[in-house]
Each structure stands twice: as structure tokens, then as C-alpha cells.
């Protein structure tokens, strides 16, 4: 339980959490959002890359097509109890 893995599908965002340098493109991000950077440095969480196909948080952020919408709940442990005995 010491390091909670966080799976994110964007490498640039992952690099932002590890890199303390301010670039011109990141300078307007407000300080409160750099909260995660401290916790990554302290070792509370660990950020890993995951491909977009396996990104399960897609379900709560965008409208999905039929195939993907049927695939994601299975992975998250959401099942139809009609098929459970």
C-alpha cells in the first residue's frame, strides 16, 4: 500500500509530474494542480503509462461507441446478474 500506482495514457502528463522545470507552455497551470508533483516526489503515488485501449477511466470521461461501452464495464467488475447463478 505504500505506493499507489496511477495509470495515465499520456506520456507528456507523466513527465510533467516528474520534472520540476517550468516551461513557457506549463507556466499558466495553477499551483494547486502541482499537488501531485509533491506526492510523486515523496513516493506516495507512482505514475505508470497505459495504452489508450486499456484506459478504464474512459468510461467516465467521454461518450463511447457500442463495442467499447460493452468492453469497459466487464473490466471494471460490472456484470449483468442475469447470467449469474
Amino acid at each position, binding site marked *: *500500500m505504500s505506493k*499507489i*500506482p*496511477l*495509470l*495515465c*495514457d*499520456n506520456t*507528456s*502528463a507523466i513527465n*510533467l*509530474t516528474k520534472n520540476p522545470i517550468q516551461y513557457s*507552455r*506549463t507556466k*499558466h*497551470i*495553477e499551483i*494547486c*494542480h*502541482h*499537488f*501531485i508533483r509533491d*506526492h510523486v516526489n515523496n513516493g*506516495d*503515488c507512482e*505514475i505508470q503509462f*497505459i495504452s489508450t485501449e486499456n*484506459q*478504464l*477511466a*474512459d*468510461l*467516465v*470521461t*467521454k*461518450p*463511447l*461507441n*457500442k463495442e467499447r*461501452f*460493452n468492453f*469497459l*464495464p466487464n473490466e*471494471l*467488475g*460490472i*456484470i*449483468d*446478474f*442475469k447470467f*449469474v447463478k
Partner: protein
Amino acid sequence: MENCKEISTPMATNCYLDSDEKGTSVDQTKYRGLISSLLYLTTSRPYIMFSVCLCARFQSNLKELQFTVVKRILKYLQGTTNVGLWYPSEVYLNLVGYSDSDFAGCKIDRKSTSGTCHLLGLSLISWHCKKQACVALSTPEAKYIAAGSYCAQSLWIKQ
């Protein structure tokens, strides 16, 4: 709505939901009642979380367009009354989190939506969908902000 046709997804992928100034106004009380019931359902049905949260943003200036989208969610729920979360016993417990965001998902103010999921073993224990408070200028920025809100939630779970 009891005998309505079932639909396989709660929201169309090309769904364009904006304030629709020219549309005809409909009864607000009914819509708000529907939204409150649907928000209650999101505690056991995470898959309608996004569509319900999107519709809940339009409660003050309501038009026909938003009402149609909510009716589609009801049609979807008609076919999925037996679907729910499954918490199996005897599995190893390790906490994994997923964080994601769209980019400029809200058509009116171009703000992004962040979403996170926490899985303990094989079961879903925490999920969250929220429109971000600031405008993100790039996809990494939107994802970075989503990761920040994920981090806050995991620290709470860890306590």
C-alpha cells in the same frame, strides 16, 4: 417510458450538447426530478456517470435538446436493470487507479472533464467525474489536472 425501446449506449458518440438558445423551453421541474433520480443511480451504476453529469449542467436554461438526451439515458437503463457492481470474495487486494480526461469536452466554455477510477483487486470502489475548474490549453495539461484530483482521492483511501 415503461414500455420504451432499449438502446445499447446511454449517449450517442456524436452527441453535441450545448445551450441551444433557439430551442423550445420545456418543464424544468420534471427535468430536475429526473436528474436527481439519475444522480442517485450513479452510486450503483458508474457507466451512466458521464452522461448524467453532462445533462445535470443544463438545469437552469433548459431546452428540448437536453430533455431528449436524458430520455435516451432512461431508454438505456430500461435494458440494463440487472447490471450492477460485483464484489467477489477471495481475491488479492491491491489498489490501482486510472485517471483520464477529455479535452475541451464542454462546448460552451471549452473546459475539460476529468475522470478517475479506483480498483481494489478486481472490483471498482471509487469513481469520479467532474468538469475542471480552469481551461486547459493542451491534452497533457488536462490529464495532469485529472491526475492531481486522482492523487487527492488515493491519499484519502490510503488513510
